[in-house]
């Protein structure tokens, strides 16, 4: 089956004010969509809608020709979503956080926790509470899901925020490999991103 994501004429409004409308696109395997726009242009809202967390004011989203609202369970099986908030529990340690997301995924293909810690360069902090990590380390921990188990579609809101140059490179490498293996990604980012092989589509949201 062809894995693709289609959005048709999406619109979003907030307290009666239209944030954006007529957003349509199609994403095929191996492609990446970069969402750009000024602050307040609705990037995060669009990503939330695409992840199925919010309902759009108008329009439909289809995953493999099925509406994501009718088949949300099937859609979320293939989706990694990361918002501004890191989605990690501050009261749990690094290892406990990773174990929690491992348990929540119910995925049999999960990587060993130690390997993930090595990729994230968090091995030394493994028993530190997430509350005591730096902003960049928290972000890395939030990104751990991407390495922990494979999923086709990544929807990431400003993934590079707070990351140092080294880890930005590691992340971009991982992203590129993901796309080469037939994955898809939707990113919002203020950074300029260049991809060697992957085909990048750009969606610019007008400021309102």
């Amino acid at each position, binding site marked *: 089956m062809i894995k693709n994501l289609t959005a048709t004429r999406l619109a979003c409004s907030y307290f009666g004010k239209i944030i954006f409308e007529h957003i349509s696109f199609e994403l095929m395997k191996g492609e990446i969509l970069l969402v750009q726009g000024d602050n307040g242009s609705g990037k995060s809202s669009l990503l939330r809608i695409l992840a199925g*967390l919010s309902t759009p004011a108008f329009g439909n989203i289809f995953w493999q020709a099925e509406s994501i609202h009718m088949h949300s369970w099937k859609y*979320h099986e293939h989706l990694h979503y990361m918002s501004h908030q890191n989605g990690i529990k501050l009261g749990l340690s690094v290892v406990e956080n990773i174990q929690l997301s491992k348990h929540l995924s119910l995925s049999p293909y999960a990587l060993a926790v130690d390997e993930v810690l090595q990729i994230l360069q968090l091995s030394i902090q493994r028993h530190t509470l997430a509350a005591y990590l730096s902003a960049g380390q928290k972000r890395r921990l939030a990104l751990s899901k991407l390495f922990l188990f494979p999923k086709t579609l990544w929807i990431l809101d400003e993934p590079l925020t707070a990351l140092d140059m080294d880890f930005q490179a590691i992340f971009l490498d991982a992203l590129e490999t993901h796309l080469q293996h037939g994955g898809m990604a939707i990113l919002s980012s203020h950074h300029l991103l260049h991809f060697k092989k992957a085909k990048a589509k750009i969606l610019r949201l007008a400021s309102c």
Partner: protein
Amino acid sequence: MLNAFRFMLYSELLLLWRRSQEWLYPVAFFVIIVSLFPLALSVDPTFLKKMLPGYLWIAALLASLLSIENSYATDVEDGNIEQLLLSQVPLSLFVLAKLCAQWIATELPLIILTPLLGLLFHLPANTILILCLSLLLGTPILTMVGSLGAALTLGLRQRGVLLGLLLLPLTIPVLIFGVSMVQQSQAGLSIVGPIVFLTGLLVLTLTVLPYPIAAALRVSLDE
């Protein structure tokens, strides 16, 4: 799935344990309220023996209200609830795990302390036992109903009072049967009726309420 439930329960308990105010405040509140009653009303032992079960129930009700308000606030703040919405584990299962943890952390200590408070006021052992049993059956219902209120009012500011106004009327049946269980045993009557009723309510809330709570959370997050 069962593994996921167990781990969620474990991590919720760990979180509550590490935030000691979550379980210390309700217990301290409970003890203080109960010790205020004799000061305000009467120190006559026979009067207290008759009235104390009711006071204990009201104190437990207020203490449970105290702890329920912020139950989902941290999950929303750190974005964890979004990850749960998108995960393969049903949200209602998470709700159940969270509520079990919440009950163990905030209500179980009250029940453990009840015999001590009972001894303080010279309650007979039999009454203490029945009182503990009634709290054991009743307080999970309070946690479940309170959680529904917390999920429905998620995102509102200053919801403490609103929660009280919404929830306290809903807890009336639990209060009536919980207290009547103790009163009937004190009067030497059979307590099977209230036990059956409370157990029925407990089973009903445990099996049905996780779904509307999960739905309420979903709606609250769909901005």
